[in-house]
């Protein structure tokens, strides 16, 4: 219960230039709807639209009378690509990612969580995706019986699919799985700006990790990664990759990824967390506790 204190905020005008977020595109498997009542094409997919910032600048703040809608309406699955129910990655679509996690289904650099992330419909599926800066490593399991079909999507900033290195790593007991490269399906992105990487790797008993690395400058989005049991047809297309020789730089980065994987074996809870600690401090001491602390505060370290 509060005493009222209403304040009319002042208006602060800011240049549009700081707001531009570039061209937005969407994945090709989710529903796209035109702006209602406007007669926009009800296409099943939408290519790159004109920059929202530039369009709205030319049509004025209200956009009235503009011939082209300043935006298109999309319907995203807020839980990501759950249609891929048998994904062997813990969270291939990044929808359950949070900066507050102690350990998550993706590592980035030496962290047990992503350090760069993105929210928006420009992710290929769902609303969250990863941002490549430091390399990322997706935690997966293998199949005891079948090869593994691997698929991932990357949206580069330079229009080329050639600067990325993807491998299905194997790490664990048997060393029976080679570091299997996942090539780009094409040298250039699709109309929505995404590069598709896919391959089918032979069966392995060791634990699998999807390693994704960029060799070019500029951030790139990663989304909708899938590792699943290969179908019969996909298994027949398995190509031998053993003769492939990675560059020294890639070898070094893969080795670093293995070190990260080994570093984070076993549990690791209770890491110091400034936000959590602040809440604990605020909740202790004299006076009554008014609210339950966030569940994050109730991590083991707080007990």
């Amino acid at each position: 219960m509060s005493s009222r204190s209403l304040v009319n905020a002042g208006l602060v005008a800011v240049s549009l230039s700081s707001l531009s977020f570039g061209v937005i595109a969407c994945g090709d498997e989710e529903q796209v709807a035109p702006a209602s009542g406007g007669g926009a094409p009800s296409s099943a997919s939408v290519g790159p639209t004109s920059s929202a910032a530039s369009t709205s600048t030319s049509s004025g703040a209200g956009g009235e009378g503009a011939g082209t809608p300043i935006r298109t309406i999309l319907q995203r699955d807020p839980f990501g690509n759950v249609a891929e129910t048998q994904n062997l990655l813990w969270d291939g679509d990044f929808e359950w990612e949070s900066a507050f996690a102690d350990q998550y289904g993706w590592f980035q650099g030496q962290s047990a969580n992503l350090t760069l992330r993105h929210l928006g419909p420009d992710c290929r599926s769902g609303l969250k995706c990863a941002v490549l800066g430091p390399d990322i490593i997706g935690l997966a399991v293998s199949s005891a019986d079948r090869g593994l079909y691997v698929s991932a999507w990357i949206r580069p900033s330079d229009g080329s699919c050639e600067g990325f290195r993807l491998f299905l790593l194997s790490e664990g007991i048997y060393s029976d799985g080679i570091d299997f490269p996942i090539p780009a399906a094409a040298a250039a992105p699709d109309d929505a700006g995404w590069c598709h990487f896919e391959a089918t790797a032979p069966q392995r008993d060791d634990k699998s990790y999807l390693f994704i690395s960029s060799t070019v400058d500029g951030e790139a989005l990663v989304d909708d990664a899938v590792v699943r049991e290969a179908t019969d047809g996909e298994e027949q297309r398995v190509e031998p990759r053993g003769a492939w020789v990675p560059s020294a730089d890639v070898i070094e980065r893969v080795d670093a990824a293995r070190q990260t994987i080994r570093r984070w074996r076993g549990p690791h809870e209770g890491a110091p967390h400034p936000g959590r600690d602040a809440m604990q401090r605020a909740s202790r001491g004299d006076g009554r506790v008014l609210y339950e602390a966030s569940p994050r505060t109730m991590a083991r370290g707080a007990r």
Partner: protein
Amino acid sequence: MSRTIRRTASGRGSALGLGLLGAALALTATARAGDFDESGRYLPASGAIAFEDFAAPTTFVPEDLDPACVGQVHYVVQATADALSGAEVIVLDGARDCPASFALEVPAGDRSYQATVWLRHGVLNGEIVVDYPEDSGLQDISVRMAPTGRATSDGWVELSTNSLSVEGDLDPDVYLRASDASDDGRLEVDALELVEEGSFSLQSTCDGLSDPICGSEAVCIYGMCREGRYAVPPLPEGELREQMVESIRARLEMFFGGRKTRLEDLPRALEELDRTLDATTPWQFWNGFGTAIRRLHDWHTSASSSVLAVPLRGRLNACFIEGDADLSHGLFPRDTRYADILVSHVGPDAAGLSSGDRLVAVDGQHPIAWARQLVEIDWGYRVATDADSFADFAEALGGPPWAGGSLILKYASSITVVRCPGGDCEPVETIAVADLAPTQGGADVACDNRPSYHFEEGGPDPATHYVFEDIFRGRIAGTSQDEAVFGMVWDTLYGGGDPNGQVNGALREAVDEWKAGARGVILDHRAGNGGTIDAPEYLTQLVRDQRDIAVLPSGIATAGSSAPATAEEGIELYSSYPTSARFRVGASGHDPELPVAVILHRDGSASDYFPFGMKGASPNVRLFAPHSTAGAFSTFIQFNYWGGLRFQFASGETITDEGEPLIGQGVLPDEIVEQKQSDLVQGKDSLHEAALAWVRENLKPAGDPR
């Protein structure tokens, strides 16, 4: 005794019966948030109750705002041509601890609403707060927001609440509390809207979980029915729900657990999960999902939501502990399965309880039995993986909610106690939880399973028991300089891979000092919160030679695989792993003559590995505890969704060098010692007394430093 609260604007209340409540619930409105015109500009719904386009937003300063945030402004109104609505948006600057609040006007009358808001370039922690005047008798509500899936090509994403009930006649303050969870100062927010939607429901008081007044869509927490839908995302509909359930089912089948939990607990969880397919409300679906996770029965496995983020009622500033009520079995017999529950220590507002008093029942059941049945409702539910360890429940009965406690205050109607002042026990007494009002102020006591501390000087504050991430060391009280018995009290094993970090550095320093100058050591780790595997490895270097005793895989390797069924298979698997995956204990420079007593009570994860590495290290190491540790020998992965919905679950199995899978097999003490009621009433700590006596009998010869 329950009633529905209905207050007039003047603050005078009256109670309504269930019949009238039912009538109120029948009033249903359906509307939809706004939509886009042909130019792509967002327009509020024609029937919108309130709409904020942020041209000149009305901010609101809640009374409970952190004083450090008062006067701070963490947003700007920004003119932009691609605002979703109008010409302005607000941009939050990333200050997570000081949320911005924006007011919404609601009309008089009892109505149900849905709120929506749009964001881009970041993650918004958004909730709608309904803040009633203090004299209304109603409690404030907070309703979390989650994505609807609606988005725009220029990056806007819609968030929505489930329906929320507002008694407009009471003139509440309704506002969006918004904080930037992305932390980079680019988050834009626009088009905050309120439409009528759903069925209005009155706030009701309730008397514990057994009170039926809350119905199936609310939970009685702190004496009020809390609408479950306020704390969870919308109900996934149709095919999406089927895919969600199948996807989660597959995750559990592929990744979850070790041998014990996959065989015994996973099937129960999957049955529960399948029931969510028939859910018709958000709460049915998400609480079913949470219950499924909780039924996995694992110390590393939990689900949490904001349903517990509600105003506290009352105070029971006491900590409970398992023990032996040897003074009062004549008044109330010991349960055949569970240990007695005793008062460990108290602060002000402890219902007059003192150390050594006994809690014999909660709502007529043994306190542990009562706490275990909360699996279907408690989003703070914590359970040991070992089926015979119940210390988490006992610890959570009392203590503050901010440390995961207060189960009694949250969910119970009554407690039954036996007071034993000075050792003379009085007749059994029942106390209504509703009567546990705060009267004295003062600090909350934390529950760490330690009735008292035993350092000659220093140590944790006995008035608060706040150990947390600190490590306390010193000479044990009541021992002589010549005896040189030292001790350590600590709960964290978070080494984090840094040999010189705060925890590992302190542990390594302690090991060196004890080897150099101690004749006996007592390691008091009775609230072992876990951490990382390196910290227990360092501690074992005090007592044993180097050896690999187990392997710790990084979770399950192949989908759905279980640990080996036989010791032979286990040894083969153990031998297959590279040394990098092994739990390596000990060091060549250890001290085999130094007696080291380890006191345990509620210990899990890295705090399982620690006693596992200590046990049997030498005849000079002995574990003292009332029962086994949690048996959480695995890693885990966390999943975080919008609005505070989170879950995590364990994956993988630890295999010993003898081929034994460890999940669910907590470390058994060498000496089973329970807290005696007769000791507690005299200020004695039974476990410490036993440990100290053993150390004294086995002191390292004097003048033999390592």
